């Protein structure tokens, strides 16, 4: 699921042809299983995932870098059906969060 930069040079504009989704979710141990389970079950192509608690720790944000061939509308609709997912924001264009993160994955 989590794809760090591999041996091939990482694509320059890393969010080209991709989209970034920002989820607000309940922060409890099962949430990641629910969200990740959805990708494999529905064959959604997720390139990267990042999760951090926010605020008082009762909620988390999950950031997803999604491949262009993923039916985004369908993915968002399915995510919104999860009881622990409160909202989904779409960032169509390149978003900083994964670009800057990539530094940590370079060997």
């Amino acid at each position: 699921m989590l794809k760090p930069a591999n041996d091939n040079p990482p694509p320059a504009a890393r969010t080209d042809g991709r989209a970034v989704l920002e989820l607000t979710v309940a922060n409890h141990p099962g949430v990641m299983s629910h969200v990740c389970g959805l990708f494999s079950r529905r064959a959604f192509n997720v390139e990267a995932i990042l999760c951090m608690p926010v605020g008082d720790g009762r909620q988390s944000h999950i950031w997803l870098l999604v491949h262009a061939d993923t039916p985004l509308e369908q993915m968002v609709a399915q995510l919104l059906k999860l009881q622990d997912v409160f909202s989904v924001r779409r960032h169509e264009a390149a978003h900083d969060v994964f670009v800057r993160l990539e530094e940590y994955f370079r060997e």
Partner: protein
Amino acid sequence: MFNLTGAEIIVGLLERQGITTLAGIPGGCNLPLYEALARCGRIRHILTRHEQGAGFIAQGMARVTGAPAVCLATSGPGATNVLTAIADAKLDSVPVICITGQVPRAMIGTDAFQEVDTYGLSIPITKHNYLVRSAAELLEVIPRAFAIAASGRPGPVLIDVPKDVQLQRFEFTEWPAPGQPAAPPAVDEAAIAAIAERLAAARRPVLYVGGGVVACSAGEQVRRLAERASIPVAMTLLGLGALPAGHPLALGMLGMHGARCTNLLLEEADLVIAAGVRFDDRATGKVREFCPHAAIVHIDIDASELGKIKTPATAVLASAGDALAALLPHVAADERPAWRGRLESLRRDHPLRMDGCDDVRTPYGLIVQTAALLDDEAIIATDVGQHQMWVAQAYPIRRQRQLLTSGGLGTMGFGLPAAIGAALAAPDRTIVCFSGDGSLLMNIQELATAAEENVNVKVIVMNNNSLGLVHQQQELFYQGRLFACDYRLKVDFCAIAEGFGVPACDLGTAADPRARLAEALAAPGPRLIHAPIDVNEMVFPMVPPGAANRDMIGGATHVEACK
């Protein structure tokens, strides 16, 4: 002020939800819950012989009433056994609450005795699930579970409760309000107006309705719309009964085993109003070629269904009943003589061929004659296989929630326990379960439950001594290479039933099988009716898997249709 254990809180909350009957099997990790049930004494517990039976009994109750029903299982094997019934409820959108025991919190993750990751296992097959971490949480989780199960598109919720949470005491001052279904989304009037416009312009409209219509009891709205604008109505397996069989505009089931006239009429449609359906491949055939000349209007309460398979020209996020009710005032009466004429001529030339329908020794005869011996109050359950499709084709389903069948998952073994659940929920009705010999053997142990509870369930075993539908597929699509489908041993179902305490009769040896059938159906309590079926019988017509619905094989005819 209440000072109760987790187990007592669960029982109290179930009572407050109106639960009077539930099914399950006790074991080490849910014994505190069972003790609380025993102390309470007001909830009837049905002790099944397998947890899958308990899951399907809960489904039977929920499918008949539309309200959430409850099943219980212990940790480990109890939980894994119940999962098939939960997955089945997910695919057919049935509100079931499953409460499983779990090892004590301190032992979770240690591979303790009878520990499995029930939470993890149930994620993809439930609408939602919980691992409860304190007795206090139960006050929130249980009402929430009922609300989730019954809201929007219904579905199963699993609640995993560690044993020590069941034993933990908690003090509270007030019970929470029982969980209720959320109000359905408001109907988008602009979209409704757009549909009305399309309908007014359409010359060959059809309604394609499914389980979503039955779930919100929208049959009446379907009928009124269909009659006012002369729209033929095709139903999915789970939609049967939305418009009564025999209604001049009822096309019966569409798709893989639909009548030729039904699939051919859909082929010509210029507008499809799809309500409470999900464009399942068994209904649509090759999806790109489904209703190739039609614009599609899709009404569903589940946003993720809109556009999942087919991109609709107009989509409405709403309950089917609300949307159709909103549409009605915008629709002018229209007789559509040409389109109705086309329907009549297709019906005349390509009817469903029901050979042998007055002889109870044939599949159609058995089903049609059974229907003739019952009234519309009867509830019909099926298992999965040829017999299921014959019932869907030939039994005149005239009410919503009259037919209980496993559509999405197609689970052999569904029929008997679901029928028992139906009988528990509707004790005044006759429940008939059409089963196959293969399917019945998958949950035959529940005959003991049926006998013990003396439920009014008549199991009709259509016995071809074979996995008939597999036999048919190998015959048609695997060069007749029959393998692993015909049983070598002939099971004596009547003797088995008697062994379980269920009286049985054999139509195969009866001098007057119809009279024998009538007698068994009229007798009170559980009965097994054994009906031998020729193994070479096939369900026709059939759209080969992957083919377009117009490409049906078999069942073509000019043989007289049977009424």
